[in-house]
C-alpha cells in the first residue's frame, strides 16, 4: 500500500512580538521584525509528519509569498517535509483570501493526487482563517476547521474533533482538508544537522505561468481579489485611563471601583 500524500499549506509572517507599525500611515513595517513561519502552520506540519511516520507517505509543503519565504520552506524540510514549493510572482502579490486560495488550489491540482491537506487555523498577520476552507471548496473536498484532535486515519477516511466552542466529532472522506489549532500537538524542533541539510535542499519555484493550466492569471493576486484595503488605522490605547497605584491604598482604590461597578458584591 502506498502511503498518504499529504500537503501542508504554510505562510511566512513577521514575528508579531517585534513588528512595528507606523501610526501615521498605518503601514506595517515588515523589515522591523524577523520573519517566521506562522505558528499555527507548524502544528499542521507536525500533524503531517506524525501521520507520515505512523502510516507512511510523503509531505509536500506549499507556500505563497515573496522569495524570502524560501526560508520557511527550508525550515519545513529541516523538520521532515519531503518536498517544498514556493509560489512566487509579482502577479500573485496583493492577493486577498479568495485569490490566495485560488493559487494554492491550482498548485495542489498541479501536484496531481493528494489525500490530506493540512493548514493552521489562521495566520497571525491576516487573522482571517478563511483560506483553508476556501481551498477545500475550490477543490470540491470536505473540510473540518479548528481540529484539536485527530482520532483515526485510514486509507479513505479521517475522524477528528473540531473545536467549535463545544467540541464535535466528524468523519471526513479523503481527500479532505483540516485546519488545525495549537492544541493538536507540540511542533518538533529541527536539529542542527537537519538545518544544515535543509540549507542545501532545493525549493521548487512556481509562477503564475506554472498554474495557468488550472487558473488564469487574472484570477490571481491583486487583480483576482474581490476585496480591497482602502485604509489602515492603528488603534490607540489612549482611551484607557492609565491610573497606576503602587502603595498601601491600592487595595482600597481597586475595591472602590469594583464595588461601584459590580452588583454581586
Amino acid at each position: 500500500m502506498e502511503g498518504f500524500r499529504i500537503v501542508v499549506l504554510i505562510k511566512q509572517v513577521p514575528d508579531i512580538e517585534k513588528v512595528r507599525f507606523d501610526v501615521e500611515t498605518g503601514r506595517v513595517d515588515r523589515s522591523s521584525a524577523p520573519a517566521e513561519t506562522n505558528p499555527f502552520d507548524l502544528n499542521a506540519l507536525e500533524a503531517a509528519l506524525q501521520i507520515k511516520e505512523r502510516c507512511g507517505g510523503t509531505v509536500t509543503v506549499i507556500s505563497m509569498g515573496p522569495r524570502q519565504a524560501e526560508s520557511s520552506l527550508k525550515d519545513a524540510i529541516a523538520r521532515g517535509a519531503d518536498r517544498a514549493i514556493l509560489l512566487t510572482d509579482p502577479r500573485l502579490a496583493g492577493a486577498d483570501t479568495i485569490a490566495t486560495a485560488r493559487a494554492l488550489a491550482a498548485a495542489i491540482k498541479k501536484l496531481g493526487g493528494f489525500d490530506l491537506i493540512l493548514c493552521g487555523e489562521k495566520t497571525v498577520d491576516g487573522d482571517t482563517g478563511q483560506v483553508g476552507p476556501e481551498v477545500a471548496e475550490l477543490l470540491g473536498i470536505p473540510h473540518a476547521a479548528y481540529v484539536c484532535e485527530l482520532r483515526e486515519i485510514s486509507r479513505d477516511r479521517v475522524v477528528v474533533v473540531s473545536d467549535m466552542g463545544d467540541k464535535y466529532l466528524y468523519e471526513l472522506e479523503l481527500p479532505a482538508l483540516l485546519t488545525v489549532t495549537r492544541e493538536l500537538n507540540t511542533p518538533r524542533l529541527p536539529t542542527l544537522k537537519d538545518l544544515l541539510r535543509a540549507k542545501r535542499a532545493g525549493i521548487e519555484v512556481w509562477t503564475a505561468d506554472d498554474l495557468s493550466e488550472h487558473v488564469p492569471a487574472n484570477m490571481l493576486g491583486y487583480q483576482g481579489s474581490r476585496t480591497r484595503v482602502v485604509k489602515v488605522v492603528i488603534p490607540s490605547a489612549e482611551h484607557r485611563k492609565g491610573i497606576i497605584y503602587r502603595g498601601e491604598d491600592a487595595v482600597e482604590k481597586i475595591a472602590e471601583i469594583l464595588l461601584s461597578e459590580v452588583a454581586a458584591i
Partner: protein
Amino acid sequence: MSGKGILVYAETRESEIHPISFELLGKAREIAEKLGLEVWSVILGSGISDKASQLIHYGADRVYAYDDERLRDLNVVAYKSVLVDFVKETKPEIFLIGATPWGRSLAPRIAAALDTGLTADCIDLQVSEDGKLIQIRPAFTGNILAHIETTSKPIMTTIRYRVMKMPEPDPSRRGEVIVRRPERVEADGVKFLGKVSERGVNLADAEIIVAGGKGLKKKEDLRILEELAGLLGGVVGVSRPLVEEGWISKDHQVGFSGNTVKPRIYIACGISGSPQHLAGMRDSGIIIAVNTDPSAPIFRHADYGVVADLYEFIPRLISFLKEVKGHGKGVVKGA
C-alpha cells in the same frame, strides 16, 4: 417590495438561535435604512420553523426557514450547498454571518463557491458617503484596523460576537416567514458523529473575568483567582502559557488563539500583556492590571494598574471586599 436585500444568516445550535444573529439583525437594519434595502434572514435546521418569528422581532422583514431533518447536524458541506443555492436565487446585496467558529468555517466555503469577496471577523460596518459598505476588521493580531471594500456581489462579511449592539426585540413587528425544504442537500464526505464535550465555561458571554498569567507559580494558585471571581460573580480566564502547562482547559484561554472576550470588567493578574493576549481582551469595559513589573505592556492598556505581587494584593483585595460585604455596604450603582 424593493427586491433588494441585506441577508443575515441566523446561526442555530441544537435548534436555538445564537444571540450573534440578533446583533447582526440590528446592524443590518441600520445599513438597510441607509441603503434602501430590505432585511432578510435565513435559518437552517430541523424543527426551527417556530423560531423564525424571533428574527422578525429583532428586525428581519422576511425570514426563510429551511426546516429539514437533513440539516439537523452542523454539516458544513450540507449548509454550504443550501445557502449557495439560496443566495443564487435571492441575490442579496450584502450577506452577514457571525464570526463564531462555525460561521468562520462556513462563510469561506460559501464565498469561494459564489466567487465573491469575504471579509473576516469585522468589528464595525459603515456606509461611506458614496454609499459603499466599509468593513472594519482587526489584523496583525489586533494591532491594526483595516478598512475593506468588496468589489463583487454579494458583499460577504463575518462579524464578531458582542461588538454590535443587541437590539430590543419588538414582538409587535410584522414580517413574512417562508418555510422551505431544500431541493438539494449535498452533504458529501462529511459525517457528524456527535458532540464530544461541552465547553466548561463561556468566556465570550462573561461580564467579569479574573484572568491569570505567568505570574502564577503553580496550578493550585488558580484558586486565589477563582475566589475573587466567585466573589464578583465572574469567571476565571488565563493566558496561553497556563493552558499549555495543562493547568486549566482551553475554554478558559483569553487571546488570539483562544477566546476573544468583552467583559464589563477584566482583571489581569500576573499577565504581562503580549500582543496575542491583548488581541483577546483589549475591547473589555474596564481593564484592571496587577503586575510586579511596572514596565509590563499590560499597564499601557489598563484603566487601573496596580504594581504589586498578586500573591499579596489579591488576597488582601478579597478580604477587604468580604469585609465590606459583611457590613452590608455592597449597595451598588446601577444594580
